[in-house]
């Protein structure tokens, strides 16, 4: 299973597809202080990324996947350029 959900922690494993998006969003909505491990995640569906961006869980471990580590992780840990800042206006 791509989603291993516990009370406050979750492991995203392998390819998280659109079919898992609803469940993931539901868990993020319900969890008080969610922590998500991306270590074994190979790909995130856009919908899953979007849910993570909205609910901003703590990322407990970085993905092994190179693309996710280089391009997606910075968005989720909030240390990136203006494009990733909530509410920032285009010029």
């Amino acid at each position, binding site marked *: 299973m791509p989603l291993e959900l516990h009370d406050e922690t979750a492991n995203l494993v392998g390819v998280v597809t*659109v079919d898992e*998006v*609803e469940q*993931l*969003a539901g868990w993020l*909505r319900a969890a008080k202080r969610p922590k998500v491990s991306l270590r074994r995640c190979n*790909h*995130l*569906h*856009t*919908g899953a*990324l*979007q*849910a993570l*961006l*909205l*609910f901003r869980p703590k990322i407990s471990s970085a993905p092994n996947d190179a*693309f996710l580590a280089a*391009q*997606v992780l910075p*968005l989720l840990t909030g240390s*990136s*350029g*203006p*494009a*990733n800042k*909530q*509410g920032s*206006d*285009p*010029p």
Partner: protein
Amino acid sequence: MNPLLAQFLAEANDLLAQVDEGLLQLERVPGDPELVNEVFRAAHTFKGSSGLFDFPELTRLTHAAEDLLDAVRGGRLTLDSGMTDDLLAAFDLIRGWLAHVTTHERLPASAGTDAAGLITKLRAPLGGEAAPAAARTAGVPAPVIDVAPDWLAWLDAEWLTETAAWLATTSSTLRFVWYTPDTDCFFRAEDPLHLVRQVPALEKLGVVQPEAWPAPEDYDEYTCMLSFVVVTRAAMGELNHLFRYVPDQIEIVELDSDAITRHLSGEPPLRAEEAVSVVVTAVIDSEVSADARAVLQAAHRALTLEGAVAEGARLRSVRHAVAAAAWALGVPVDVAESSPDELIATVVRLAGEAAPAPVAPIPAQLQTQAVAPHEEKEPVGRADDPGGQVGTRVLKVDQEKVDRLMELVGELNVAKNGLTFLADAAEEEFGSRVLSRRIKDQYAGLHRIAEELQAAVMDVRMLPLSVAFGRFPRLVRDLSRRLGKTIELVTEGEDTMADKDVIEALGDPLVHLVRNSLDHGIETSDERIAAGKHAAAKLTLAAVADGDAVIVEVSDDGRGVDPERVKRKAYEKGLISEEELETLTETEAVDLVFRPGFSTADQVSDLSGRGVGMDAVRASVEKLGGTVTMRSKFGHGTSTRLRLPLSMAVTQVMVFSVGGQRFGIPVDLVVETVRVPAGEMSRVLHQEVVMMRGEVVPVIDLARALDMPSTLAEGADRPILVVSVNNQRVGLLVEQFHREVDVILKPMEGLLAYADEFSGTALLGDGLVLLVLNMKEVLGLAARVA
């Protein structure tokens, strides 16, 4: 043979038949959109599959045919008989090629030259050779440095500065992609992040989040709210390919150091709107929007064509096309209820918005030719289409395999029949009634299964009569043209099923009958009008199931058979006596045409002549266990009726012996078996006869007829098999009766092939080969011997 090629050949056969039939129907109902569509689809499938093999000529020829048909379908051309001839010729050529492919697995060497002329002819109505397909994809703009779009601001300024410096140092450029997925894109199974991660040589990814997120409880996780800025070293071609399914959701620009620097310094060389319009140009020029414009043009033509689109499915399909085009252009419109006039207004408005881009425009003429508008005549609700094919998935099986299966069923029957011999032996030789009983029980069980198996296999062998009728539209068309007669061919009951052997065997007699009718039966239009008939003659091919037989009737409304003339002719040829000339009824007179050596036409034409008469038709039908009768009303037409067994694979045969050897006769022919005391036999003239219930029945001594020794004792009872041939009762004097058995009749082969007195052979359970009598020939033989 490669199984894929075998599959293709099997399918090709069906497609060819479909195309032929469709084209011929189209000639009668020109412009029927459903028919055009059918033919187009067949030709199209052909082309699609032909591309799988290394048959470039086949692909080119089918492509040309497809383009012509597509133009017809799109309403840009009207199919005339010249085009039909060319199309038929093209598919005839293909048929010939495929025969060559079947044996040699490649096209004949002459294919290229053979096809060239036809391709030119097929292309002529379209205005000559089509532009190569490659020209259409030339919409990719040349590498031109674009102006930095304002969405560049989503990228980190520090990174942009560093990048600009590096680009300046290396005099190079980067491609920037602005990807704004549709909010409902997840429902088309698009995953933008997945697409983005496939971008080669990715330099930088920016993910743009919504200005304001909805509250968690209102958040719809299936609405895509993210956008992406992708910076890459990948070539324009790579990006166009990767994003080809979402051209309306992306903008791609190529930027150098200067463009980026100008953006950073905030000195716009062009105003924002202009910059955007340049960007949009690149996108608008994508394949989809070019297609959308072509659709709009086509819709406009269809709408402005008088009376072409008034209501119903046609209008709905145009609405549909316009909506789709508008969607593709990114300006969705609601035209679900629009009238034709409103639609025209919408189309004009949309066409204005989607005016062809000034940069690298696709020549307008090329668009209309290459991107054919299918939409305008394509009915939407195809699900209800009654003209489709058989709904169930059909498994195509090599005929040989079914034949093999049938053979095995036959062998099973034979082995099964062997059990009855064994039962007899158990009782007679080993004196065990119990064992005999048990064997018979086993036999009964096996018999039931064998029968079911046989029925199942027979069912597989059943084909619709349409297979036999299929060639006639073409035949009638060609012949009627040559003869200068106008003939409407009507086929009925094509769905009637019969065994494939019956269907196959029907072919020649049917061709003969149809030719006969065209040649002799049907008058020229002038003659018909003079006789007060409709100028177009009607030729009907009808099939109907009748119990375990199928009746096929060939009828015309031609001049009919003149019974007097037939009688005179028969008399002149010495086929009937003077007495018969006086006494024969009309029906009997008509039947004379089936006599060997009779030909009604004063001159044998090259059509039906060929030295074969109606007698050959009757002979071949009777060989199948069928009958032929002809009814005719002089001046009003002729109808020939063939009655054939639905299946001829298994025949019930009555076994008897003559001269110590066993023979068989089809049970259908047997009326009864009797044993007549020798004293009751009498003789009329040279013919032995027996009185049966007041009727004089001639008796033929089979031993004499077949030149076998007679083994009957002088005063013993005479076993007589009474058969009915041509409604006449005849007694056959045999030696001994045996049981009835089910056998698979095989045609005579080898040395016996010319022995007409036998209709076939069958293998018996005890391994003996049984010769089955052809009663008609035997009677003739007996007459000659006497």
